[in-house]
């Protein structure tokens, strides 16, 4: 059941890289701090990608996969960006599996419809409902770029890294998405 969550900001003021180093040295509390720091954002991102159920499980799988290959994390980007990238790939893989099971049913159409219905249950405010409906009408890539930029505060460079695109393309996707949302809301 989805409900309002508090961000588990850890008391630990260490940077992500310091926590990673401590975890590698055997400090398991450092791993807990990293999970507490990034799990809420990952859960939000999972929902924005249309993950309606098993959000907790998706977030867990993301962390398990990330910690399993933490040696390959080069710190060229932030840990959160890297986690977003892993989670996005994970969700797309899940969708492909579901699509095979559903025998050629258009995933995007199903997601757009049911996703809004599911989210509508938890959004009472009319304005917010309209916003969600407007965002849900974006293409999948536009929506990903738009929400990563607006909700998670990622730069275009980081957004491009997550969605596997270029910085310029991310900028174009963002502005097209913003225009579409404004048209849906105000025109």
């Amino acid at each position, binding site marked *: 059941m989805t409900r309002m*969550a508090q961000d*588990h900001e850890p008391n630990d003021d260490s940077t992500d890289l310091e926590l990673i180093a401590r975890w590698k040295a055997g400090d398991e509390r450092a791993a*807990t701090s990293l999970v507490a720091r990034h799990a809420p954002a990952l859960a939000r991102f999972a929902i924005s990608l249309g993950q309606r159920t098993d959000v907790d499980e998706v977030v867990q799988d993301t962390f*398990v996969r990330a910690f399993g290959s933490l040696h390959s994390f080069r710190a060229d980007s932030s840990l959160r960006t890297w986690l977003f990238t892993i989670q996005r790939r994970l969700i797309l893989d899940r969708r492909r599996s579901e699509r095979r099971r559903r025998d050629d049913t258009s995933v995007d159409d199903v997601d757009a419809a049911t996703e809004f219905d599911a989210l509508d249950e938890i959004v009472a405010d009319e304005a917010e409902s309209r916003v969600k409906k407007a965002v849900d009408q974006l293409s999948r890539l536009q929506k990903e770029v738009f929400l990563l*930029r607006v909700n998670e505060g990622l730069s275009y460079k980081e957004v491009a890294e997550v969605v596997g695109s270029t910085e310029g393309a991310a900028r174009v996707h963002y502005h097209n998405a913003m225009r579409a949302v404004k048209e849906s*809301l105000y025109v």
Partner: protein
Amino acid sequence: MFDCANVEMRELLPELAAGTLDDATRARVERHIGSCAECASELETLRLVRSAYAVTPTVDVRRIAAALPKAVLLPEGAHKGPPVKRWVDWRVAAALTMISVGGLSLALAHRRSTEAPPRDSTVAVPSVDTSSAQPGKPAVVGSPPGGHDTTRRINRSGVPATPPPKAQLAFAGGMDDMDDTSIKALLGALDEMDRAPVAPSEEPDPTPVLPVIKTGQP
């Protein structure tokens, strides 16, 4: 609906909504918004979007942390990068094997060419029946009447390879390799050997004798 022409200000609106701008930049953007209806409208949209997606499901941090793989503590100086691909190891191993086998083969070939003759190094010399030889008559060459093989072997140096009683010589190399002088010396040595008396062999007949098993039947 129009977009603001001030691209720099527009690009900073998401950061303003997220509250991640430093004070100076934030003040500058807010001044711009005070005089720009398009940016004010866009900022309002951004805040609506953030508000709509601010709801997140709870996540069980402890459960996730418990499911994480344990860190592998590596000893000091150990390889900490990504694992080396196994196929590289196999290629190195295969290359080393090839070099080893090739080197061994070359060493063996070289040793053979320097130490061992390239073909059968022994020459059979028929026995000479000196007992029947008489002055002025050639000795009879061949097997003795008893059928006992007294074939002798000589080696290249002409030195008997076995003690005189056995009257055998080993001959290393082929006759083609010898010049006339060597052949004459060899023949001389053979004559010397022929003149020496041949002792009867005391060795038992190497032919195995099968035991006779009586079955009790005629």
